[in-house]
């Protein structure tokens, strides 16, 4: 059987889904959590608690600040110690609320029963409000505030809702476990989103290596109208928004456009689950699944981790950092970030903690570009990474803009395939920054 996929480029890295058969476990609570005020793209939230305040699980501690921002809630119960800074995964200092954990007392509005509530009679504005108040952001990695994404620009109408169950990053299995363990909840979440967007069709895209997840979702599908599941070929970066839209609908987002320009809204599977919990259970986004894995890890696992838990605590509780670790990555190996220490905390976008063995951690020596064309062949956006790299080396920003550098989705396929170990993506990112500045200045 031929499965659908996107057309241009793409690679097949070793999937290494070593943790996929390990059911989720709940990570114990640490003594101290540091809840970051930036767990999303956009303006930092404003802390609204004072040192000495008592907070419960689910209580608002950070207020969204501006349009593109998100609420932040306490993930534990206890006493606020101080408002201080924490190092994020990029190494930057961010404001965080430090809470000393005392017991596990939840806000009484939150429904903690395991029962699935499948009917939702709320009006659309009410649904959107609940999503906004719950501080939900895109959990696939971009962490864009979800309520903003659901507010469609004037005059645009959504035709179809696309759900991203791809998880094409190697090693990560958090979305896979969620589809296995919370299938019905996800489908309820999808139908709530369909209502909120006013669409009667939704397609869930899942790669064919997650057969059990597809079977599980299909089992519950009969009770829902308008939801389809499409099995896709395994290919990276199919979880990229533009690639997923093309794979599922055969449409391409025009240059400089948004998914809504082709009538699509895309949401990640974990985000949909969080929406279910927010709307049906009044539970804000205070925890997520984090995959802990790596080639040398003895006990792989998928853990429900509260937001703000120090990554050093996650590592300790999950068997420790393997002895031969040379690099620790937050997220997947294609787009994740290498950490300089475990001082940062789990945030809303933390999908995995990945240990890379020493011998694989160091970058190999760069050689001359041999012009083998592999980076062009593999680029899912049809760009010429080798050319962009040389344009960066010569600071040819105007030429870079003409070479469409701003279309780069930073998937890393070019670096992955380069036989000369060129660091193409880093150069291209630098070029995007420079060109972005020029474009902003021009539009002033």
């Amino acid at each position, binding site marked *: 059987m031929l499965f659908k996929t996107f057309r241009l480029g793409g690679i097949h890295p070793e999937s290494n889904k070593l943790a996929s058969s390990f059911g989720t476990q709940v990570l114990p609570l640490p003594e101290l959590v540091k809840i970051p005020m930036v767990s999303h793209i956009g303006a930092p939230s404003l802390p609204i608690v004072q040192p000495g305040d008592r907070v419960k699980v689910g209580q608002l501690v950070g207020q969204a600040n501006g349009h593109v921002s998100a609420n932040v809630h306490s993930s534990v119960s206890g006493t606020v110690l101080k408002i201080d800074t924490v190092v994020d995964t990029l190494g930057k200092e961010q404001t965080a609320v430090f809470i000393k954990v005392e017991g596990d007392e939840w806000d009484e509005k939150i429904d903690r029963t395991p029962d699935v509530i499948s009917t939702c009679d709320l009006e659309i504005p009410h649904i959107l409000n609940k999503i906004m108040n719950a501080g939900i952001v895109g959990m696939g990695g971009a962490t864009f505030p979800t309520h903003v994404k659901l507010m469609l620009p004037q005059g645009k109408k959504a035709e179809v809702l696309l759900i991203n169950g791809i998880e094409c990053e190697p090693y990560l299995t958090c979305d896979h476990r969620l589809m296995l363990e919370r299938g019905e909840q996800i489908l309820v979440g999808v139908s709530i989103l369909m209502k909120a967007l006013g669409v009667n069709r939704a397609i869930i895209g899942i790669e064919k290596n997650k057969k059990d997840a597809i079977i599980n979702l299909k089992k519950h599908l009969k009770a829902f109208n308008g939801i389809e599941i499409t099995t896709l070929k395994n290919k990276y970066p199919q979880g990229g928004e533009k690639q997923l839209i093309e794979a599922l609908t055969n449409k391409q987002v025009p240059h400089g456009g948004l998914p809504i320009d082709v009538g699509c809204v895309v949401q990640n599977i974990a985000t949909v689950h969080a929406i279910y919990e927010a709307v049906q259970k009044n539970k804000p986004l205070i925890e997520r699944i984090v995959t802990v894995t790596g080639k040398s890890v003895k006990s792989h696992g998928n853990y429900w981790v509260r937001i703000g838990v120090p990554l050093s605590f996650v590592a300790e509780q999950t068997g420790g950092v393997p002895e031969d670790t040379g*690099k620790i990555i937050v997220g997947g190996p294609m787009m994740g970030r290498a950490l300089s220490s475990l001082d940062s905390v789990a945030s809303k976008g933390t999908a995995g903690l990945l240990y890379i063995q020493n011998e694989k951690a160091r970058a190999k020596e760069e050689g001359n570009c041999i012009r083998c064309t592999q980076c062009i062949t593999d680029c899912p956006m049809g760009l010429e990474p080798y050319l962009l790299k040389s344009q960066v080396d010569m600071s040819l920003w105007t030429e870079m803009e003409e070479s469409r550098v701003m279309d780069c989705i930073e998937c890393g396929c070019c670096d*992955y395939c*380069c036989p000369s170990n060129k660091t193409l993506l880093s150069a291209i990112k630098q070029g995007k920054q420079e060109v972005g500045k020029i474009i902003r200045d021009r539009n002033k």
Partner: protein
Amino acid sequence: MPQLNKLHVSPSPHVHSGDTVVSKMGTVIIALLPAYLVGLYYFGLGALIVSGVAIVSCLIIEFFIQKFVLKQKSTITDGSALLTGLLLGMNLPSNIPAWMVVVGAIVAIGVAKMSFGGLGRNIFNPALVGRVFMLISFPAKMTLWPAPMPLNMHYLDAETAATALSISKEFSVHAVDNWDLFIGNAGGSIGEVSALALLFGLVILLIRKVIRWHIPVSILSTVFIMAAIFHFASPDHFPTTPLFHLLSGGLMLGAIFMATDYSTSPMTSVGMLIYGVSIGVITLLIRYFGIYPEGISFAILIMNGVTPLINKYVKPKRYWEGSKK
């Protein structure tokens, strides 16, 4: 717990396909071996000496240039100088004096490759520049090929014979059976005689995804179609059949191994097709109307020169270009 203060931090991605320059060059060399072995079989000792001298001198010249002239780290282990040497050797007659081969190697590596900045920076295919330099400098020796004689022990004293292409050019007749041309039982340069072995190499290159089909297929089909049109339009003027043109001379070796050289050929599929079709047309025009019996070397070098222009104007298919509005 390991020492966390020694963590390596680098930008994404953190995994790699494992492809290296050495693995790509190695695959090309392996793909060349069948044709090379056929050459050794039919041209014996001479083929071994000529190709050996070509390879060794290419490696030594690159080593010395990097060590004493450019003062950079040696890259002779990347396999590219070995490949250039092998290709140069396979493009020469097996009875050519060794010192001429050394001259060719100096031009190939010293002039065509290293003076442009080494691997990946050269505009013209080094092995072909070396070969054409020899063709122009030593025309007599470069156009006299020994007759095939399985496992012979001759070198400079090998018995020579006219090749199929030169006979057809002068007398407008088929002198060699197409089947002999196909398996390699014909006079010519060491590595060009067996179309079968070269096609086998093509299959290896395509399966291992070292090259894409565009260049070899467009060259070969252009030559075939154009020769067919000429032949059937006017058999009296163009008695050679399209199949003969496909199998004779250096066309296969050139189309599969020389024109596909990474740094001297276009980067996009459309660019590759433009380049391939042009090479095919120029090759046949030289074969029909030029003074040389064979034109593939010149055709490739001419299009090498056009490649930067093709790369500038022919862009890959962008993601949004297929969008239906």
